[in-house]
């Protein structure tokens, strides 16, 4: 059973994308959502609560999504958190690199609400 009250961290350097993700997550009844604008900001916040899910963009500065993923997977306190990459980077090398770094799933932008729901269910279980 998926706990929809668990804290979710969304990370993107575009405020409009953060707002889109927050709204789509709210429609899926995930209301406990925090956001960050890059990997450094996210990493700091991830240590302040027990998050149940990270949804992150790739192309951000100064810390990219792939760097954030590696830092999360290397951190004993965070490595268990499901991590979904949501990015416009759609090259084969990107998908392979992300998979090797331990990403839980990969969504290419632009995406729709059904894709988001489907990928979250594949990561968290049906809801």
């Amino acid at each position, binding site marked *: 059973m998926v706990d929809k009250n668990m804290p979710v961290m969304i990370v993107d350097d*575009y405020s*409009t994308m953060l707002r*889109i993700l927050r709204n*789509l997550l709210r429609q899926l009844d995930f209301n406990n959502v925090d956001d960050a604008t890059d990997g450094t900001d996210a990493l700091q916040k991830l240590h302040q609560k027990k998050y149940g899910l990270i949804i992150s963009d790739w192309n951000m500065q100064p810390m990219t999504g792939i760097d954030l993923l590696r830092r999360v997977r290397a951190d004993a306190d965070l490595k268990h958190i499901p991590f979904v990459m949501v990015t416009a980077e759609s*090259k084969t*090398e990107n998908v392979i690199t992300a998979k090797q770094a331990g990403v839980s799933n990969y969504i290419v932008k632009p995406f*729709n609400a059904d894709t988001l729901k489907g990928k979250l269910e594949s990561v968290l279980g049906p809801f």
Partner: protein
Amino acid sequence: MPEEIHLDEAHEYLDKVIATLQKMNRREKGPLVETLEHLSRFIRSTRNEISSMRPESASGNYLSNANDELEQIINETANATNAIMSAAEELEKLAGCIPPEAADRITLIVTGIYEACAFQDITGQRITKIIRAIQKIESKVNALAAACGHASAEPGEFGGPASPSNGDAALLNGPQLSNEAKSQAEIDQLFANA
């Protein structure tokens, strides 16, 4: 890294080579001198043309202004997108006040609006790629002008980052063109097989 040679110096060296060759006998020097003289004329003409380009106009105004305009487009589309989403969020709240069938329909439409608003992120990333390309052109124009002895131009003054060919930086390419971009289904297949 090879030592940088100023265009004026290159021209000076070339003149010296031509002068040395002119001291040689006619049969030895003929075609070679002709070629070098042609090259010398070409360098002089190119240098004059580049010097007359007023690079401060090209790099200092036109290109920088173009970047400012593009950044403004990103900001304006972000503002418009936020306004559209604010309206959609209000509509979604109203869905709770109407019969369930209509509410479901409203929610579906609002979801479509949220999805469509992702255009701002994608176009923003594409415009950022153009801004970086212009910065590179600006850097090249300045380097060329500096090589021609233009006092106001500094090589790399507005230099954009060099294109990385490997490592994580090479994976930061932003959105692909629509005929090159992979679909979610292709990504899923790649992900499953990676």
